[in-house]
């Protein structure tokens, strides 16, 4: 099982908010720019990769039980999003990688982990 702090290393990501909440285990990964699709996920405790930067991204994670958000392509979220994330203890990560590359890196790391 992967933790958010593993993802920080895998994606070479910057932790924008929530340094203290990186030890949570990720049950599911989601990559989407459609928030309703995120709400339609069947599992909780997911990590969301997105190129959206609005505060609604964090709100959606909160409502649907997400445990972290990764902003791809070096996009920084709105300040409102940062405030929401702080209130709900949701770590926000930023990586310069594209969604595709980020997903690929995560899958590679997962495969490696399973082999061990």
């Amino acid at each position: 099982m992967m933790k958010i702090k593993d993802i920080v290393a895998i994606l070479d990501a910057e932790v924008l908010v929530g340094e203290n909440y990186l030890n949570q285990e990720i049950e599911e990964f989601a990559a989407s720019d459609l928030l309703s699709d995120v709400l339609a996920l069947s599992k909780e405790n997911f990590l969301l990769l997105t190129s959206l930067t609005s505060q609604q991204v964090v709100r959606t994670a909160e409502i649907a039980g997400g445990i972290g958000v990764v902003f791809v392509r070096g996009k920084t979220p709105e300040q409102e999003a940062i405030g929401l994330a702080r209130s709900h203890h949701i770590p926000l990560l930023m990586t310069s990688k594209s969604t595709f590359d980020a997903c690929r890196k995560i899958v590679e790391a997962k495969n490696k982990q399973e082999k061990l």
Partner: protein
Amino acid sequence: MTVLHSREKLTLANELIYEIKVQDAMTRKLIFFSQDATFREIQSSLKKNRISGVPILDKTKNIVGIVSIDNVITALDKDYINDKVKNYMTRQVITIPQNYSLVSAIKKFEHYKFGRLPVTKNARSSEVIGILTMGDILNCLLVSIQTIAEKVEKKEAQNTRLSEKMIEQVHKKHLRFEVKKADFDNAGRVASIIRKYLQKLNIDKQILRRVAIICYEAEMNINIHSLGGYITVEVDESNIMITAIDYGPGIPDVEEAMKPGFTTASEQIRALGFGAGMGLPNIKKCADHLDLESSMETGTILKATIYLGE
């Protein structure tokens, strides 16, 4: 402004430099000298206060000149460091009125390549009330950006208190929330409050999630598509009932609206990540029972029920 590296933050900083006035960013604690001061005195003051220049003021605090570190170096070089600044100081001083926005200050800094600008009471006055550096501007911008995040945090804390207050009230009472149209900044507030409220009631985690998603989608629907409305939530021993009512304009074809992927949302809304045409299908998926009535005259009534029993 190299500290604010990303495009998005730059846009925000751009907005702020127009909004924030010089008086909000300037240093009010003014270090100044009269024209009878010597370069030596000024040199030690610059060193002590770690600054690179001081305004020279007359008795009524009107500006008559400015002495920068460059002037001091020249004085050392040309050997008049112990002379009064009166005859050597820069008399053509560029100032900025306190009610100007930061953008004019930044333009002046860029144009004249100065490190500091004396701030005057108004455009016609030469009375100095403060001093402004690029460092002051940067500082002020960073604080303003930080404040935006803090405001949201405070609002969320209020929501938590609100949900706690509700628990003290009677269980079976309706919880009623107004939802305004196109109020995207507050979208999700109702869902968030209800989620916290149900959490306190020790409702099962999965059920909690379903209720929150229904509320959120219903809230977004009212927000995006309607003229405004409200959401009520009722909790009793066996059910949670969520009712979302709006004041119009109504859904022309309910059957079509229930189809996954069908959407009438604008590009702007899709850019926010909404309008995927999954709202009503998501609600249906999360609810044990769903009633949807819509009239082109009175608006839409959505009733979703979740069973708490086995």
